[in-house]
């Protein structure tokens, strides 16, 4: 779903923007000036929304640091306890969390790197190069975003199990090497950010296309590549459906390990389960804490650049 959602911003305003495009720059300037100040009601509502967004995250920390008994005895604890380390130990006893974290890091890094590389190349071609069938092919790219994984997993699983890759992380990496969303994202960025004169000037100077990619496209695309890399990393880290099918508890990603933790036998330790969820979430929350503004910018950017 995420891949799809990110396509909207640019598709949306493109339709609406048709009559207004000529004066876009002016509009944007005046649009910023017209904003009314928020009243107290707006602040209160936003604070409520913020609390609703953050509370489950905070409570994950609370539950992860309590004992099972504390957790299932009302009233539910609302302040962190002292059992975080004990729970972490049990998480590591029950599932191979080290392997899961390493696997998820490898998978998400490979997928992010390769998506950024291939999406930048394809995005550059779609944004700035002319070739036969360009618009039709771009439409194909956008359309592929709507194909759900459910339609491809059965043959993929057959193939993967025929070549003995079930339970191996390459079966999760390979189908995700480049995503349509990434191509579209880079195309949107480069059609705005990369002046066509720059490419032509490099051409006139006799630079072959790999040199242009390396010395012109990559430097300009770098901020967008960073944002795309983060978005893809988050998506890949959180991906569930295909890893759940292709991997198993002997060699899981973090999400698959979590599923194993949550669907264990009936004498389940709930605090430990939530502790596992915390372990899976903390790496991404750290990324968000450091780079949150850039991620917000990356998600909203497409809507302005159409």
């Amino acid at each position, binding site marked *: 779903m995420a891949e799809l959602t990110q396509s*909207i911003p640019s598709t949306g305003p493109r339709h609406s923007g048709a009559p207004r495009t000529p004066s876009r720059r002016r509009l944007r300037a005046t649009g910023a000036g017209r904003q009314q100040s928020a009243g107290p009601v707006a602040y209160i509502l936003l604070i409520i929304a913020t609390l609703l967004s*953050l509370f489950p995250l905070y*409570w994950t920390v609370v539950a992860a640091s309590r004992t099972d008994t504390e957790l299932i005895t009302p009233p539910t604890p609302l302040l962190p306890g002292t059992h975080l380390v004990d729970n972490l130990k049990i998480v590591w006893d029950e599932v191979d969390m080290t392997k899961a974290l390493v696997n998820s890091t490898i998978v998400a890094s490979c997928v992010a790197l390769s998506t950024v590389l291939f999406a930048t190349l394809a995005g550059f071609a779609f944004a700035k190069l002319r070739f036969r069938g360009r618009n039709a092919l771009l439409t194909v790219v956008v359309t592929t975003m709507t194909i759900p994984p459910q339609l*491809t997993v059965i043959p*993929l699983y057959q193939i993967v199990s025929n070549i003995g890759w079930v339970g191996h992380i390459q079966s999760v990496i390979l189908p995700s090497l480049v995503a349509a969303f990434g191509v579209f994202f880079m195309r949107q960025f480069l059609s705005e950010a990369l002046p066509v004169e720059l490419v032509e000037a490099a051409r006139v100077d006799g630079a072959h296309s790999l040199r242009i990619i390396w010395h012109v496209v990559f430097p300009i695309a770098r901020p967008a590549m960073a944002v795309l890399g983060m978005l893809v990393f988050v998506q890949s880290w*959180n991906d569930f459906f295909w890893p759940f099918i292709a991997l198993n508890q002997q060699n899981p990603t973090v*999400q698959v390990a979590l599923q194993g933790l949550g669907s264990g036998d009936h004498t389940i330790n709930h605090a430990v389960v939530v502790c596992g969820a*915390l372990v899976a979430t903390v790496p991404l929350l750290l990324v968000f804490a450091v780079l949150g503004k850039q991620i917000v910018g990356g998600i909203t950017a497409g809507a302005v650049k159409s």
Partner: protein
Amino acid sequence: MATSVRATSDGTPRSSGNAPLSQHGGDPGPPAAGWRVRLFRLDTKASPYVYIAPFFLCFAAFGLFPLIYTGWLSFHEVQLGTHATWVGARNYTELWDNTFFWNALRNTFTLGVISTVPQLLMALGLAHLLNYRMRARGFFRVAILAPYATSIAAATLVFVQIFNPDYGMINQLLGHFGAGHVQWSTSKWPAQIAISAIVTWRWTGYNALIYLAAMQAVPADLYEAAALDGASRWRQFISVTIPSIRPTIFFTIIVSTIGATQLFGEPLMFGGSIGYTGGSAHQYETLSLYMYDKGWQVGELGQASAVAWVMLLILLLIGAVQLLVTRANRRNQGG
């Protein structure tokens, strides 16, 4: 000379490149230069295709081929590792006669509605609020997006605790208001509401940011004119903001619908050890879960493929509606 040829072929590579090529053939320059120019032109002509090739190869191998092969499998009886036997439309007729299939279809629809509609309405409201000039706006934006950083698995495991009927926070809170004990997992509607709460929590902030970006592109004169006409803020929101960002709203609806059609991880993990069946009485079994159950629990890949293709047909239907509405929309705006 060579430079000018390059420039021409660069500027209009879509026009047949033969003319400059033959022109170049008469060029008395050294043969090495001719070879280089030809290589250069090959470079400019072929490189776009080289750049887009990785995506299309990957899509052909892991998207298009499996998609079509799934359709082929849906007309066969096949288990993992066995040869497929042609059974015609039997997998589809069996689905038609199967109450669990219709149950899953209904659940997918109702879960889709109750997880999408409130989500998008709240996102719209939040975007409107975030569009005001205010303190700490950066903080608010990051905060409402924070749930997006959690995974389906992690979020669901935490919400399972919050919604636990016996000791969960929600029932305790309801108890304070004198409301009864809600069976969030065994009763159909409460369970579906709990699952859609997970979806809503994870995606509202994300959609709000997308709406916010669209709202910031709405021209100021529209608001000024509305204000001159004495329109209240609420009136401006309804008559200026909403119509201006209608395409974005429309696309988020489509995208959320597509996402809702594939709902899998949330109901699976919400059910814990009985998640495969979508609850003790299949009360939140979605099409995706049903497909997984058929394919990986029962082991009938042909039937699972038929479920997958039903999902494709549903998505095509949604796509067709999207197309029609977009066209109607454009006609209205044009007229």
